[in-house]
């Protein structure tokens, strides 16, 4: 078997060290890894779920706009980056585990390593109500 590309492996290692939620997906949008802070967003532990399809993770944190209208997966920065292979950014709302609507900003970047192959993307979530 072949493992993940080194740039994905090192992205996971970076995510492991960060205190903000980080999601890493493959070129098909499958969620390959999310760190411990991201487990608070998804309400699931990576150890329990392993990889997840975009259909499973894209709606699980109930992304919505200011009026409460749901945002479909294709409106999420990470999914946009998968389609365009370009960075994306958006501020929107998600429901926390306590069902509180929280305003967050998400930035996603494409992961393209030394082989110049698009290996996937990484998204960082920022809780705008936290002042770290």
């Amino acid at each position, binding site marked *: *078997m*072949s*493992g*993940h*590309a*080194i*740039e994905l*492996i*090192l992205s*996971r*290692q970076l995510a492991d*060290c960060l205190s903000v939620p980080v999601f890493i997906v493959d070129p098909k949008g499958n969620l390959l*890894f999310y760190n411990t802070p991201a487990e608070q967003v998804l309400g699931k532990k990576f150890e329990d779920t*392993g990889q997840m399809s975009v259909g499973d993770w894209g709606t699980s944190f109930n992304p919505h706009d200011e009026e409460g209208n749901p945002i479909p997966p294709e409106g999420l920065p990470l999914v946009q980056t998968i389609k365009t292979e370009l960075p994306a950014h958006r501020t929107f709302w998600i429901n926390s585990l306590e069902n509180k609507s929280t305003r967050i900003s998400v930035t996603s970047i494409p992961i393209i*390593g*030394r*082989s*110049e192959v698009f290996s996937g993307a990484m998204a960082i979530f920022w809780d705008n109500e936290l002042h770290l």
Partner: protein
Amino acid sequence: MRVKLHGTRGAYPTSSVENQKFGGNTPCIEIIAGNDRMILDAGTGILGVDFEDGYTGERIDIFLTHLHMDHVQGLAFCKPLFNPNKEVHIWGPGGSCEPLQTRLNRFLSPPLFPIPLRDIPSKLIIHELSETSFTFGKFQISTEFISHPGPTLGFRVQYGSKILAYLPDHEPVIGKDHLYPEDEWVSGFGLALNADLLIHDSQYSIKEYGSKVGWGHSSLEMAAEFCSRVNAKHLVMFHHDPAHSDTERTRMFQEFNRSSEYTFPIELAIQGQEIEVGG
């Protein structure tokens, strides 16, 4: 398929009398199978390759894992480069903003070296490698980028049914005590899977590693855990720290052996040693 270890030392060459047992030359190994030969890395160990024996043709191939000085410093004094009748092929990692030739030229040019690369008498042919598999003579070679600062390739070389994995500079997980539990998240996993012989970085003791996280090297313990995970059959611990005397390195290895329960053979690389892969 046989492997000759011409240089086993990491970082810089040492001629200290206290380093003679494991050798003082920096990384270079030679793979010999019938009439087929290939050289991996061009540390000062390459000066020990007998180019008069087995290299009767005009072509010589040198494969570089990366361009850190300890892996290229023998290149400048490698005799075939100065023989106009030789065709020297240097294969090394791409994946940089600069071509491999430009990067090599930084070292092989004044003021660091008297002769610029373009004036080297042999016919020099540079090949950039990425993540790929290809046939070279009777060898099947696979390369992947692995975890080490700067573009660094690991090599998997297969001859018939025998497999050698060469990852001389490798930190498969950074700052953790153990590898990730999922195989696909382990750097170099596919390269070394089921290898008959794994030559792997093991520069530090586990205590030293704690203060050298991210430097791109492994402890003895991590090298053995990696070997076990990839189900390699034989581990040669490579890239000895030049600051370690033979006595210290031996003591370190004995301590490691006392606390490990691996069943595959593990040994410290010795300069000049020849190993039959799968033998």
